[in-house]
Structure formats: C-alpha cells, structure tokens
C-alpha cells in the first residue's frame, strides 16, 4: 500500500515537474523563492495524495495544487513569512542550451515574459499560465473554477495587457 502511494507520488512528480517549475517561476521574485515554492508544491502534493481519486485528470489535480500553493505563498509573503523549506533530495540544475539559436536573447525574452506575467492579477495569471501550458479552455475552466466563457473573455483581455507590456 505504502509502496503504491510512493510510486504514484513519484510518477506524478516526474510527469509534471517541469510544468510545476515553470509556474513556480512565474510566481517568484527570484531563484530562491522559486525553489521554496517548488518544494512547497511537492509537500502539498504528498499531503493531498490520499484525496486523489483519479476522477479528475492527474494534470488537472496537479495544476490546481500548484496554482493554489503559489497563490497562498504570495498571501503569506505579504502576511507572515513564507515557510522556508530545504529538501536536499530535490536538485535544480541549470543547463547550457546549445539548441537555441541565441540562448542569451531567448533568456532575455523569457525574463521579459515573466516580468509581464508578474504584472497580472493572480487569477488572470493562472488562466494565462494554463493557456501557455497548452491546456484547452475546458480544462482551464476546471482548474480555475470559472466557466469556459469566462476563460475566453479573460484570455482576450490578458493578451491585450501582455502585448502592451511586451511592447513597452
């Protein structure tokens, strides 16, 4: 039983770790905060796992936990000090990307994108991050709790905001 639990936990993490990291980065001011957030998400996945019934798609479940944890951490950083976790079992590795035509320019574009995403309100940010993760509106609606129509209307507004920000 415990072994099945552990296997499921690792399987979910392995399948979703890069998505989780990207979202944590969008909610963080710096690398340390991103790592703290990622670790907090891992802990919350573990804590929530007994409630995972497989009815919702695993990705929907993981995205919900990730986004809720990130929103909560932002509230905490305003209110109390966020938990500073230190899990030695998780390694973050920066890699040299040779595939990219100009890694430096790509990095600047990514930072710019993060900066503009950072200016959005939390729920707008959630909707847009899920859009960037290539999720259909139906799944975005299931994760965020708003209707598909609302997602569509929000997306229009968010894109306008982001385009203005990216051009500036």
């Amino acid at each position, binding site marked *: 039983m415990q072994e099945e639990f*552990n296997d499921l*936990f*690792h399987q979910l*993490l*392995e399948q979703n*770790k*890069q998505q989780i*990291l*990207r979202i944590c*980065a969008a909610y963080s001011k710096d690398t340390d905060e991103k790592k703290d957030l990622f670790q907090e998400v*891992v*802990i*919350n996945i*573990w*804590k*929530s796992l007994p*409630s*995972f019934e497989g009815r919702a798609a695993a990705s929907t479940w993981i995205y*919900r*936990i990730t*986004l*809720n*944890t990130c*929103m*909560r951490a932002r*509230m905490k950083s*305003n*209110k109390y000090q966020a938990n500073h*976790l230190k*899990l*030695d*079992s*998780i*390694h*973050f*590795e*920066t*890699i040299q*990307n040779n595939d*990219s035509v100009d*890694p430096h320019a*790509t*990095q600047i*574009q*990514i930072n710019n*994108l993060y900066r503009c995403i950072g200016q959005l*309100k*939390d*729920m707008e940010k959630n909707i847009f991050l899920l*859009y*960037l993760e*290539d999720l259909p509106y139906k799944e975005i609606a*299931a*994760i*965020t*709790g*708003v209707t598909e129509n*609302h997602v569509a*209307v*929000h997306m229009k507004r968010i894109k306008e905001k982001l385009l203005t920000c990216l051009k500036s």
Partner: protein
Amino acid sequence: MKFLWKSVSDFEIVTFEKELLNQEVRQHVRSFNKKILVRDIVEIGVAVMIIPMGVFIAYLLPDFFIRTGAMLLIPSALLIIYKILRARRFKKPGQHFISNQEYLENNLVNYQNQKQLLGSVLYWYILPPGICALLILTGLDLPAMKFYYALSITIGLGYIVYWLNKVTISKKIDPLIKRLEEELGELKGM
C-alpha cells in the same frame, strides 16, 4: 509565446532522489503536525488549567468577592476554549486540490472568521477574565496603592492584548481580505 514559455525548461531541469525525498517529505509533514499539536496545547491548555485553579482558589479563600471571581473564571475559561475550537472548525487546511476560485473563497471565509474572532477579543478573551481579576483583587483587601498598581497592570495587559489584535487585523488580515475580494469580485463581475 507558447514556444518561448516551453523553452524555459531548456535552461533548467529538476531531479529527485526518490528514497531521500520520501524520508524528507514524511519528516516535514510529521514535524508540521507536531507544531500544530503544540500550538493547540499551548492555546487551549492554559485555559484548561484555569478551571481547576478557579475551583482551588474558591475552595481556599472564603471571601465573597474572591470566591465569586474564582468561580467566574470557570465559565470564562470555557468561553475561551469554545471560541478557539469553534474558530478552528471553520478552517479548511490542506485542501489544495480544489479549484482556484473555491480556494480563494475558502481563504476569504477563513480570514473573515479570523477577523471576527480577533475583533471580538475584548468580549471573550479580555473582559471576562478581567472582571474575575477585578473581583479577586477587591476581595484581597490590598492597601489602596497596591490595589491600584495591580489594577493598572491588569488593565494594561488587557489593553496590550486588545491593541495587538487590532494591529493584526488592520496590518495583516484586512489587506488579505481586500485582495481576495478584489480577485473574486473581478471574476464574478465579468
């Protein structure tokens, strides 16, 4: 934009040491639960201890004021325990897997309850034991100077508790409520 977003992962990867991760996570959850338990014992334990203390004082000192004050400590302590337990019932910890909107709504209710609890601290945490203390002080038949000195300390302590709770509400809880209301208002106003 989507392509750019996905390319973030070309620059950083995450790896896990499975066995160590299991140990660390389990250890973290255990220590977290332990902290919650200690907090419960500290918060409620003090109030629980007041009950036999009240009985003991009432039994030991026959003065009318002291006996009344000591006996009133019992319902005061029970009220504090009831308020803390009731407030805790509203909290929904650990439910991270619900939708974002539900999560925000739950947090809003949680903070509104906290605000209500801290805002009414005068009536359930300060005044009832304060009145008991006043009765006991009256019954102790202290010299006037000592009586006023003890009374000032009692009122001062009560004021500090009141002030700290007011500050917590205005500096910490109110901004969070405002932010949550804005987020939810924006979603519903569409």
